[in-house]
């Protein structure tokens, strides 16, 4: 029974993801002009202010709890909208980078690879950030504390880099 459920779940998930990939694989950006027209102008400083801990503490101190929750939700809503636009920008930049890579310039190709890797990492982080923001939206007054997983993750990455360097 468990294997049946697992197997059917895997089959359905594979189908759903393949369908999602095909339905989202639209034309993308075609050239620099297209990029200039479609890119979203968003300021990273505003994003930082929206999610600043000191700002939050300040608001918590001076606003009544209900008003604080309402205000905090509006800030989170705005931050989520910004993240969606950043996600769009990162996707378009990756596509444009891949097109630029077609020129066959090796120096440029290495820079583009780096940019695509950063954009990919950013888009993975965006998933996590969105999840955090959704939790925060539901519990705006909750002072959350989680185990420091990212520290272990960073250690793992560092040790992998070190071992790759040693092998090379």
């Amino acid at each position: 029974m468990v294997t049946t459920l697992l197997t059917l779940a895997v089959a359905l998930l594979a189908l759903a993801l393949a369908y999602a990939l095909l339905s989202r694989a639209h034309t993308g950006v075609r050239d620099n002009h297209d990029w200039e027209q479609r890119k979203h102008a968003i300021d990273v400083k505003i994003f930082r202010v929206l999610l600043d801990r000191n700002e939050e503490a300040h608001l918590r101190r001076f606003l009544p709890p209900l008003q604080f929750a309402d205000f905090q939700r509006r800030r989170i809503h705005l931050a989520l909208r910004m993240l969606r636009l950043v996600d769009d920008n990162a996707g378009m930049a990756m596509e444009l980078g891949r097109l630029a890579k077609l020129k066959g310039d090796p120096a440029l190709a290495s820079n583009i690879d780096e940019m695509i890797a950063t954009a990919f990492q950013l888009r993975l982080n965006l998933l996590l950030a969105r999840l955090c923001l959704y939790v925060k939206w539901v519990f705006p007054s909750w002072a959350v504390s989680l185990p420091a997983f990212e520290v272990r993750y960073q250690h793992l990455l560092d040790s992998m880099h070190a071992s790759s360097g040693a092998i090379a």
Partner: protein
Amino acid sequence: MRPMSFAYLVTMTLWVLPLVVQAAIALVMLKRKSVKSFPIFFSYTVLVLTGETALLFMKYPSNIYTLVYCCKEGLAVLLGLAVIFEILGDILPSSPFIRFVLKSVWIFGGVAGVAAVFMLVYHPDAGAHRVLEFILLAERSARFLQACLFIVVLALMSRLGLTWRHYSVGIAAGFGIYSGVALAGFELRGHLHLVSDATFALLNSAAYNVAALIWGFYLLRPLPKMTVEHFPSANLTEWNEAVTDYVNQWSRRY
């Protein structure tokens, strides 16, 4: 001579149509020199094309038919798994972070492989036709592993913002759909015995046709000519730092 019933016509169409599409794909790949980028997918295409064409003209049932079928299926499953890593090599740029992602995919593949072997070994009921049942269950395990790996690849692809211009999207989506339907079919036929052999064969064949048509759509289209003058600047590093800083806040008490 066999009667030209509707069922026979449908069966033959579903058998021959993907062969025609795959022959065209192989020719176009040779012409565009894209064999160098996707040698395993090309080998898979040629293997299925030659194997199925040979089976089309062989006497059924016969020992040689069974031998050719089993060899072709075994090799096709292996190449289908190898294609996954070929796609990853094509879509992922080289960087330390990406190498970490690739290693994670290998680990996930290992876990899915162990689960697939477990599903094959610990199967309580072998049924009356032990050999046939074993073949079906072995193929189910292989499809399970393939579908698991394609789930990871498709999820990564959705984060990489790939568009219809990329062959990898078509190849992965085609395999994803085929492995998903085939896996469900093997579960319903080989394990649960809920569908008849005819329904199972039709389902499998129809899914393969869909996959071949997707490959055809992606690989047979004329190549679009795009020009990009300069490299885009989108302050992604700055954004990545801002988002990472926010996520990191969650691991500290505030």
